[in-house]
């Protein structure tokens, strides 16, 4: 499809949609291994400090964690639907769905801000005197909690940037119903953010 339509509309412009998507997947594999390594660190620390991890996890807010899970799942569905909308030449709906995704992503970060704020308020941050007094195991739990959810939140921000980038291109008709791979790649990145959270959520918020 790509070579054919690209030749028609842009003369000699060559496009390799499949190759572009393969590149995105290869990048996603490096992300999976990055978080994968952290999950292994988590499981070893938890295995060695089971009671401390249970005690520490009681400090996390399951409600906020659940709300953020729902937010990410819904936003994952909306960005996926925006691809279908663009493929069906419904540019307006595609952009609306991208805006909804961005609003949800932002509200995820707002929740994260309040959640982290409460932890800091209670002296539960790496290096805090209160946390230091709770012992090695709980320290490891909170170190991993901040590092992993922080790295994940950073990915949320990058994902928002990626979506804004492709949304502008859709608005300017640089991405259209027969040239949408970049939107698909932004979608893949966003689903990765969702995928990582699917594991972070039970491992940090649901230990009881």
């Amino acid at each position, binding site marked *: *499809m*790509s*070579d*054919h*339509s690209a030749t028609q509309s842009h003369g000699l412009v060559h496009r*390799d*949609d*499949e190759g572009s*998507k*393969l590149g995105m*997947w290869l990048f996603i*594999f490096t992300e*999976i*291994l990055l978080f*994968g390594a952290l999950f*292994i660190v988590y*499981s*070893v620390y938890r*295995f*060695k400090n089971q009671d401390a991890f249970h005690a520490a996890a009681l400090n996390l807010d*399951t409600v906020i964690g*659940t709300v953020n*899970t*729902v937010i990410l*799942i*819904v936003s*994952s*569905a909306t960005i*996926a*639907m925006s*691809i*279908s909308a663009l*493929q*069906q030449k419904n540019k307006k709906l595609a952009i609306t769905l991208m805006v909804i995704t961005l609003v949800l992503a932002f509200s995820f970060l707002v929740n994260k801000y309040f959640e982290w704020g409460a932890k800091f308020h209670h002296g539960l941050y790496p290096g805090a005197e209160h946390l230091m007094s709770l012992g090695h195991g709980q320290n490891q739990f909170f170190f991993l909690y901040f590092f992993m959810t922080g790295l994940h939140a950073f990915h949320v921000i990058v994902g928002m940037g990626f979506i804004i980038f492709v949304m502008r291109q859709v608005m300017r008709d640089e991405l259209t119903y*027969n040239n949408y*791979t970049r939107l*698909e790649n932004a*979608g*893949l990145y966003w*689903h990765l953010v*969702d*995928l990582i959270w*699917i*594991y972070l*959520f*039970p*491992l940090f918020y*649901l*230990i*009881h």
Partner: protein
Amino acid sequence: MSHDTHEEVHITPYSTYIIILALLLVLTAITVGVTVIHLGTFSVAVALFVATIKGTLVLLYFMHLKFDNKLFLGLVAIVFAVYTAVIAITFIDYLSR
């Protein structure tokens, strides 16, 4: 996405995404629910099992692995197989110390 013809482009209907979204929400409710009823050591296994079902749904439907070139599905399967092996080796090490 195939490079031959327009006809081969797969457009996922909105209804598919809505169904997958509903399934993911139900599974989330199940994981949270399981935590409340305290299954002890069992609950980690249940939580990871449900998370893996959710992850598979995201990969197959949201990330289009079910509809795209099967090369992508194969690569993802290899990456997860290697990762699982690394976890297994790590734990064989820790459990046998």
